[in-house]
């Protein structure tokens, strides 16, 4: 059975990781606007995810402006896949239990 990921139980971190799972890379500003966080709040979450090697951070310049790009690592992708499978198990088991209760004879 798939296991839930401790880090991804936080909805904000799950939001960041699932956003990056759909992208080859994303600018820091895009992720910030999409998940609705401040620069510092996102920076903190990204540091946590990068420490666990879920997210890779690359810095560069576009003209004279500094730019930060984020992408999900293989490890991050695998963690998200397992977390999603665990969430599916939980949601599915409740559905099966519900169906079981309905089919039991009354009395």
């Amino acid at each position, binding site marked *: 059975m798939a296991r839930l990921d401790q880090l991804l139980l936080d909805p904000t971190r799950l939001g960041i990781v*699932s*956003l990056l*799972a*759909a992208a080859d*890379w994303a600018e820091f500003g895009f992720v910030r606007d*999409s998940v609705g966080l401040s620069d510092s709040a996102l920076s903190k979450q990204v540091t946590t995810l990068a420490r666990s090697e879920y997210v890779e951070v*690359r810095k560069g310049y576009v003209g004279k402006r500094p730019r930060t790009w984020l992408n999900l690592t293989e490890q991050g992708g695998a963690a998200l896949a397992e977390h999603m499978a665990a969430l599916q198990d939980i*949601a599915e088991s409740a559905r099966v239990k519900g169906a079981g209760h309905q089919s039991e004879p009354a009395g």
Partner: protein
Amino acid sequence: MEMTEPTPEEAARALREIGQRRQQVYRGSASPRWMWILAGVLVVAYCTVSDLFPSSALWLSWSFTALVLVMAVAGRTRLGSSLLGQRVRPTGAGPIKLRLLRVLVSLAVGVACGLTIHLLHVPHGQIIYGVLFGAYIVLLGPQVQAWLLDRAARS
């Protein structure tokens, strides 16, 4: 640290949110308006110069092709994407189909415009072709892209 298991409702909600994030990425990858305007203006300029100065058509075609290739390659890099105003690059099989479909739609419009002008024997047909195709890029390009991205996000 103790891990609290989400309730089935919370798990279902989290899964829905993951799907919504995917849609956010696709919608966020649309090209900015200025890119469409620039592309439309370039097409009009190219067709106008080709029509008025047929002797320069060859080098102009090569320059135009080179520019398109450079932009296509740049769009695949982080730096190039940022320069072209794209803040995110979607992953997976969707975008490949999406690009093919986009090229096919553009080709169909281009061929239809070209054929109509050719059959009607309009003077300065290339300029008219450029204006029609440029207008399509500027006015309908963003809508077609938004529709295709929406389809890719749902696939």
